[in-house]
């Protein structure tokens, strides 16, 4: 910089210019991650900021890429199931369901009724668990350390329930092609009912401790406003979309499994953001939608428990699974949004192309638009409210 000044010659003008050049401030480039307490997973967000105000953001992904789609081409149909657990590890049941349904639609087999009901129970309980993490970690991001532990207390019970039914706490591989791997053990359904009752009481506490806290509202209301148009343009789905006022939920609008029946029976309604505390589509709305969805999921679980039937849990399947040739795309409502599985079969023992549409990937794209203009603290709040699971973003 001083070289330039000397080139431009001597005199007062040059001295002034030299002063200006040396004093010119540069935007600070800060790396959020890949190791950072607030990015949910191994993700790097390069943030350019002018002191406290963010002027630009760019997400760098790929730190958690594990070639899930390529592996899909190399293993047999049933063998791929454990891999589906691992992309969105917080809602593994949903992933299993999506993949299984994609393959089942190619095979055209019917799933037994009990299996369908148990599937929905597991998927909705998983949704509760996933939203508990989203809510708890979001509290941690904005500074309230305690709701995280309280949320994990409930999640621990949910994981214990899943441990009883399938043997694993996080990567379940329980919903298989054709039904389920095994039936619920005796007493499991009663425990699920007890969980629903206790959870409703605790839900009130979550709302009082964090969601209604004035400081939390000040941190999140009016922050990171995602407009309808931007949400639709970026392909955002899930609670983020609903918080921006777009009334779209795959469980109701493109129903799969038995959701059409559940919705027709009035067992759940879709929570929609309304800008209650700030603007429509802000961080508070997104958190609110997730908290309300937890309650709706408990309602769905209760309906399934009430309509439970006895019966087999796995359809008639050959020993070696061969799926007729064809391609199929099945999208389900993940806790994060639309999780799509696209499988192509050539009649062989495995797929020749498995493509996964991860909702976090599209949801994450909005940070390049939302972050500039926000303060650093807001940047954290916005990234946290998107509820990213990097396993799903990178697969």
């Amino acid at each position, binding site marked *: 910089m001083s070289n330039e000044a000397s080139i431009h010659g001597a005199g007062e003008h040059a001295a002034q210019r030299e002063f200006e050049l040396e004093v010119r401030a540069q935007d600070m480039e800060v790396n959020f991650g890949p190791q950072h307490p607030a990015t949910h997973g191994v993700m790097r967000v390069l943030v350019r900021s002018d002191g406290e105000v963010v002027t630009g953001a760019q997400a760098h992904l790929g730190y958690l890429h594990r070639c899930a789609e390529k592996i899909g081409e190399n*293993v*047999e149909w*049933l*063998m*791929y*199931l*454990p*891999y589906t657990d691992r992309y969105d590890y917080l809602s593994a049941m949903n992933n299993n369901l999506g993949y299984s349904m994609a393959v089942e639609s190619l095979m055209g087999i019917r799933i037994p009724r009990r299996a369908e009901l148990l599937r929905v129970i597991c998927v909705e309980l998983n949704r509760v668990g996933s939203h508990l993490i989203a809510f708890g970690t979001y509290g941690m991001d904005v500074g309230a350390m*305690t709701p995280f532990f*309280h949320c994990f*207390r409930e999640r621990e019970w949910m994981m*214990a329930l899943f*441990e*009883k*039914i*399938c*043997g*694993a706490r996080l*990567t379940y*591989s329980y919903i298989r092609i054709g039904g389920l*791997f*095994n039936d619920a*053990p005796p007493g499991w359904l009663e425990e699920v009912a007890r969980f629903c009752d206790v959870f409703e009481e605790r839900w009130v*506490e979550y709302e*009082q*401790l*964090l969601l*209604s*806290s*004035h*400081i939390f509202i000040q941190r999140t209301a009016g922050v990171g406003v995602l407009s309808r148009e931007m949400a639709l343009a970026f392909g955002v789905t899930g609670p983020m979309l609903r918080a921006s006022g777009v009334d779209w939920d795959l469980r109701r609008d493109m129903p799969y499994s038995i959701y059409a029946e559940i919705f027709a029976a009035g067992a759940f309604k879709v929570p929609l953001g309304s800008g209650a505390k700030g603007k429509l589509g802000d961080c508070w709305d997104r958190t609110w939608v997730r908290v309300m969805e937890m309650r709706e999921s408990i309602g769905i679980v209760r309906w399934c428990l009430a309509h439970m039937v006895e019966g087999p849990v796995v359809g008639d399947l050959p*020993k070696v699974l061969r799926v007729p040739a064809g391609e199929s795309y099945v999208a389900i409502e993940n806790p994060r949004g639309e999780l799509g599985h696209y499988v192509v079969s050539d009649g062989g023992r495995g797929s020749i192309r498995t493509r996964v549409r991860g909702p976090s990937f599209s949801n994450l794209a909005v940070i390049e638009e939302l972050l500039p203009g926000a303060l650093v603290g807001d940047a954290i709040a916005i990234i946290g409210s998107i509820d990213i699971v990097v396993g799903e973003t990178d697969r």
Partner: protein
Amino acid sequence: MAGPRSYIFNVVNTLKTTLVGMRITGKYLMRKPITVQYPDERMPIPDRFRGIHYLEQEKCIDCLVCARACPIDCIEMEAVRHGKELEWISFTLDYQKCMFCELCVYPCPKDCIHMGTEYAFVSFDRGDFKHDLLSYQGMAPDARERMREADAKKRAAAAAKAAQLPPGGEALGA
């Protein structure tokens, strides 16, 4: 900052929600915690838990179905057949690769490989993780017994058959 009304609302709401929050945290402050003191106390493990495998070696017929079912090919087994009996050399499962998916358990025709409730597998050496599931090597203690019996039976059957045939002269005789 709009108007005195929102000002007062801010102050009052902050105080109110703070006190409500403090009541909840105060409630849990007074309660007994829910955690267990690991490793002195453990959480109960349900029966279906997908832990370290165990093999019922007598039932196993070395059919390799579990090895083929594994998505990661972490099961390797070696046995020498002696007629119907097996002489076991090794049955290893590489826990560096295993993802505890339980896909090996279902296809087993003899229902002999299971996942147990053990989850702690700690070692300082990577070699230890190629865990041998065999409880004994070589042949089963009563295998040789069975082989000898089978052998004896075969010889007896052969002898009986030979005994049934009349002596050469008689058969050709009258």
